[in-house]
């Protein structure tokens, strides 16, 4: 059987990659170790949150599946940061760990051109620096034009609990023993990373009466731009809050050397933003308590996820630690916390299209590229799928810029700076946060989704209509004036005096005037959707700062437009400092903009490089 594309791994990256490829009419095979674990959530039961929520919206805008699938399967939905500006609003769902994979599998199975196979991939078949297929553990060989590796944490994975180290992936699944060694054989740099997950507690063993409750929002929302809410507000399941205390900290400090981390049993590098509880207690000695969240995993079973309590302590110490917490004195631990170590490829090995630099037609996405998180994985999976398809169709890759999408920031960071720890998307990584909002992901990216072929004509027409409505409303607001004579109206607006006539557009710039208010007073027709009203209102209210960021971004795109030829020899460029020279040679940036973001390349190197490029262009 011949396939055009093989996707190795059925996690969030693998699902997006195989769906994108199959939907773009490529005959695709998804190889997974266990069909039951497709779209599995081995760690926290949530999707979205700051930055990550915007990633999900971007995936949806481009035609990916994560947004829709979350809308079908969550237990609770919340917009975070609503007290702050619109640039940092972020949707977060508590996903049902049974429903989410079930819905995703349903979608995969009903997609044309997509086949799923249970097997472990052992090696790549490479000929002339080009991948042409994969070899299974059974010895079977399958041929294809492109291969996408989305192996998650399974490469040579070890589970760490206290002093014990056991080979294996999450949920006692089999690890991929040989693949990473075989990748090394092709000259790829492999690094070892670590992550961890906290305990699962039996729901009925928790005393909720003493805990703080956290409910979902009272407003219905969706991640996807294309579907209506599928849930009822009152059906949402609450989360709860508890805290560590001095007793917990004492237990941890007394047993510190028993943890894998402090006992010296860990080799991989863990993420700073996801420290284990022992790390938190050691590093922040002055803090008397640390906040913990109790999150439901599913409607269909009893496990409660204890967010914030990840540890690599042995089981008996974990028992003591959990029982020291308020409300959990008699808690029953269903699953103990563990740390997991796994192999990943140095992301500097790939291009911004996510294609490998050394092996043609090989794409990688997700944790294998050194990232962490379901959303980061899904975003890369989608982009790898899109770019593999574009490559087979003989088209230029889709590379999103840092001022276009968080996905652009994510991939640019990976291929420009590499990563020493599992990379998580944070809003602070984006320079142009005000441009990359939750509300305008479709405006930024839908056009690309349509061009690529993942957004069909019906969805595209709906989007075009939204743009038209936005333009129409904006123009109307600029036309309609309120005159000083309209005394009743002005009084109801509760605003400072209006001397000359003022347009609704200018009036909306005043912080006390909202678009809802103008609607209430009958100044705006009722026909506009909430999304259109929101878009127009944000554009007016934050105009000054949006313009500032656009100006900064256009400075960046000047550098971004200067392409660096792939055959450039940095050793021939005089006056570049040796560290800069080495880094440029390793990263092989596509543009001068990317070159300027490489750490160790200083501004004078960029100045020299830009002069060289001008001369190079004249000579060639």
């Amino acid at each position, binding site marked *: 059987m011949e396939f055009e594309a093989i996707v190795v791994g059925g996690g969030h990256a693998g699902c997006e990659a195989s769906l994108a490829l199959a939907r773009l009419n490529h005959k695709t095979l998804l190889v997974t170790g266990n069909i039951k674990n497709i779209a599995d959530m081995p*760690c*926290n039961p949530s999707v979205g949150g*700051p*930055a990550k929520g915007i990633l999900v919206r971007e995936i949806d805008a481009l035609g990916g599946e994560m947004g829709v699938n979350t809308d079908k399967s969550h237990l609770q939905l919340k917009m*975070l*940061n609503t*007290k*702050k*500006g619109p*640039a*940092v609003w972020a949707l977060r769902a508590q996903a049902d760990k049974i429903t989410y994979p079930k819905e995703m599998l349903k979608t995969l199975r009903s997609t044309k051109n997509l086949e799923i196979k249970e097997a472990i991939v052992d090696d790549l078949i490479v000929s002339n620096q080009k991948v042409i297929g994969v070899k299974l553990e059974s010895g079977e060989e399958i041929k294809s034009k492109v291969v996408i590796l989305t192996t998650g944490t399974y490469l040579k994975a070890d589970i760490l609990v206290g002093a014990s180290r056991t080979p294996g992936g999450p949920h006692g699944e089999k690890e991929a023993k040989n693949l990473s060694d075989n990748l090394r054989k092709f000259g790829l740099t492999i690094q070892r990373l670590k992550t961890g*997950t*906290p305990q699962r507690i039996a729901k009925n063993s928790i005393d909720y009466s003493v805990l703080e409750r*956290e409910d979902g929002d009272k407003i219905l929302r969706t991640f996807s731009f294309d579907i209506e809410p599928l849930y009822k507000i009152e059906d949402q399941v609450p989360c709860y809050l508890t*805290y560590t205390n001095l007793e917990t900290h004492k237990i941890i400090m007394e047993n510190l050397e028993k943890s894998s981390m402090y006992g010296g049993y860990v080799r991989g590098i863990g*993420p700073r*933003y*996801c*420290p284990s509880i022992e790390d*938190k207690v050691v*590093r*922040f000695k002055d*803090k008397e308590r*640390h*906040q913990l*969240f109790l999150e439901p995993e599913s409607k269909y079973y009893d496990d409660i996820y204890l*967010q*914030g309590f*990840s540890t690599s302590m042995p089981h008996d110490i974990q028992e003591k630690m959990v029982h020291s917490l308020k409300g959990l004195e008699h808690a029953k631990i269903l699953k103990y916390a563990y740390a997991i170590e796994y192999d990943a490829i140095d992301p500097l090995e790939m291009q911004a299209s996510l294609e490998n630099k050394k092996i043609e037609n090989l794409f990688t996405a997700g944790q294998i590229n050194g990232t962490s998180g379901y959303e980061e994985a899904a975003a890369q999976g989608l982009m790898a799928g899109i770019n593999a398809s574009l490559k087979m169709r003989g088209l230029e890759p889709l590379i999103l810029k840092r001022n276009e999408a968080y996905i652009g920031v994510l991939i640019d960071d990976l291929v420009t*700076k590499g990563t020493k720890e599992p990379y998580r998307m*944070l*809003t*602070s*990584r984006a320079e142009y*946060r*005000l441009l990359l909002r939750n509300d305008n992901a479709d405006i930024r990216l839908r056009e690309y989704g349509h061009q690529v072929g993942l957004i069909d004509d019906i969805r595209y027409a709906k989007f075009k209509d939204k743009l038209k409505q936005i333009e129409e409303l904006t123009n109307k607001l600029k036309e309609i004036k309120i005159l000083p004579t309209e005394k009743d109206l002005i009084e109801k607006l509760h605003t400072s005096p209006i001397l000359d006539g003022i347009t609704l557009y200018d009036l909306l710039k005043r*912080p006390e005037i909202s678009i809802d208010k103008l609607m209430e007073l009958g100044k705006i027709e009722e026909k506009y959707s909430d999304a259109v009203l929101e878009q127009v209102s944000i554009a007016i209210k*934050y105009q*000054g*700062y949006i313009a*500032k*960021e656009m100006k*900064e971004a256009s400075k960046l795109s000047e550098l971004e437009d200067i392409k660096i030829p792939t055959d450039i020899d940095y050793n021939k460029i*005089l*006056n*570049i*400092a*040796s*560290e800069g*020279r080495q880094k440029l040679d390793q990263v092989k940036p596509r543009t001068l903009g990317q070159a*300027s*973001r490489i*750490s*160790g*390349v*200083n*501004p*004078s190197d960029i100045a*020299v490089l830009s*002069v060289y490029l001008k001369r190079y262009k004249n000579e060639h």
Partner: protein
Amino acid sequence: MGSWGDIMNDTIVSLATNLGVAAISIIRISGQESIKIVNDLFKEKDLEKVKSHTINYGHIVLDGEIIDEVLVSVMRGPKTYTGEDTVEINCHGGIGATNKILEILIKKGCRLASRGEFTKKRFLNGHIDLMQAEAILDLINSETEKERKVAIQGLNGNSSKMIKDLREILINLISNIEVNIDYPEYEDIYEVTKEDIRKNIDIIHEKIKKIVAESENGKLIKNGIKTAIIGRPNVGKSSLLNRLLGNEKAIVTDIPGTTRDIVEGNILINGIKLNIIDTAGIRETKDIVEQIGVNKSLDIMEEADLVLLLLNNNQELTSEDKELIAKTKDKNTIIVINKNDLEEKIDISSLDLENIVYINTLTYKGIEALKNKINSMFNLGKLDTNEFNYITNERQLSKLRECLDLSLDVKNNLDTLPLDIIEVDLKTIWNTLGTILGVTYDNELLDNLFSKFCVGK
């Protein structure tokens, strides 16, 4: 660029002392090949084997001929000025020997360094930040003692430290805001308030404002005080210039309109350079050449740091005088009243009495008083104290002015816009201050964030 050679790979040489008659000349060589090249010419020891940072006595020998008796300092990188292997040859002063050795070194593979190239190497090797590199270049180019002091301040990193302190305040504020955004549900993490920002931005705004204001004065130290002498024709402008300079530079006649070009001269007052510009007398004229001179005078007056407006004691204020008085109202102006030996016909009641000095250009009388007035007007004495913070580099100063505008934006918008939007300006200030120091984009922000706040699953 091409003719400049490869700064990081070339071994460069230059004379570290002035060429001329002196007891000793020092030739400095820096680069990968420096020790090897000198060793090939050095007779007594194998310099490639001597300890680092040692001084070695011997002779420079070429083809068996002794060129000079020398002391050679061998210093291996990275603990050298440029960060690379460096050799210094102390040879006998005098043009002959020094030039001969330089010539041989160039023949053996050294390249003659261009101005500032040793410092550029030092910067490229990461030993100093951009601001310090610029200060060193200022130091090399400094002419007066005051200029040297300002340059040294930059060099020691005094100005760098001020900027770094401001960035420190900002980064702590920014990281805290970022954590609030990325981890909104962590109730026990301190939530930054608008009050916090107000407090800090006030401090930052005031500090930057002070540095900019003081730097304007500091700039005077570096560039000199641009001083324009203006007045109607024949009030004695050229005579005043000559009295100040102590020589007869400008052409002095009693025919009005003689000075048609701009004459310049420098004097030092209290160690500060005064660039004095004599201007053509300003009056209504039909002579085209003279009119050009008049227009130019007005331009110079606009640009000047200091205006010496010369009036005649012996005449009533004319309409032209009054116009000049009005035009110079907003500038640093000293009204100099000449010909105080003649009968006082001028009515000074409408003038700013604070800034009037009487002189007589025939007798030098009042010239000292004028110098004292300038001294006190620019607070030149104060420029000596170490408390005084200034940045004299124009690039750095313009960046600081940008930061000043942005900090004003923050103050103005704080009440109406959300924190995360205000933070856009805070970040830009932080970044702009970073470009003053020449720091590159890196993970500074995230490192700070994760070291200070406790978050995660």
